[in-house]
């Protein structure tokens, strides 16, 4: 599964940053049916977490009410440069990680 973590250009220490996350995932609701009429099994990213060098910034549960290819943007002030890591797991047990090195200028 592909994911994108996007930072604003020239991120600085002590300045509010808007970080954008996009994960490629169908977020299958379980309410759709295939061509034979059988229900397509529910499979959503039900848990994700986002941390800076292992310190959690946020985590949480998503449901079928979140759109496919989940998008999340949130605001944060980072105390220092480091690795931003996104981790997620879906109903089928597939896990994914994506990380990006965030270099903050003073």
């Amino acid at each position: 599964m592909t994911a994108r973590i996007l930072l604003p250009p020239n991120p600085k220490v002590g300045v509010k940053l808007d970080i954008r996350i996009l994960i490629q995932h169908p977020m299958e609701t379980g309410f759709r049916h295939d061509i034979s009429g059988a229900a397509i099994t529910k499979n959503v990213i039900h848990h994700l977490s986002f941390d800076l060098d292992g310190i959690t910034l946020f985590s949480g549960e998503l449901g079928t009410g979140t759109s496919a290819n989940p998008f999340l943007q949130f605001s944060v002030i980072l105390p220092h440069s480091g690795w931003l890591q996104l981790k997620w797991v879906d109903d089928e047990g597939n896990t994914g990680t994506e990380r990006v090195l965030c270099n903050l200028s003073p």
Partner: protein
Amino acid sequence: MNAKRHSLQTFAQLLTLNGFSRLGALGLGAVGALLPMQRLQAQALERESEDFRALFKSLTQSGRVTLERVHVSIPRLADNGHSVPLKVWVDGPQTPADHVKRVVVLSERNPRPMISNLQFTPTQTRLEFSTRIRLNGSQRIWVLALMSDDRWWGQVASVEVTESACLDASL
């Protein structure tokens, strides 16, 4: 406006269910117009699913949710129910002493009312996040924020969702 109309209807309906006559209900409905609209629980809950009501009550421990501090930006008319952009922000600095612990987004009419349940840590800046949600038809969504002092604050927003004009049954 709409909230007011909802409240009147609910009040009248509840009374009718309890065995009052229709005329009596109308009369009481008219009286109801004079009552102040304050409590969250008195607001229109008649169109949402049972699941939503149960979830709402269990989350908030049937406590009070104050409709302040939480701001919601969502289109009044959604392009498409599959992807509706939602922005949430909560007044306040997000310090260790005073911060949003949890934000829950609930749908009144989706088959599963829990849209998302996110836990936050103090990030030293106002809590702001955006996401894209699915809405199963026109409805209201509730955004509830649990603060570090265990009080619930929230906001409600209405969204109109229309069906796609051309049914795409191709695969």
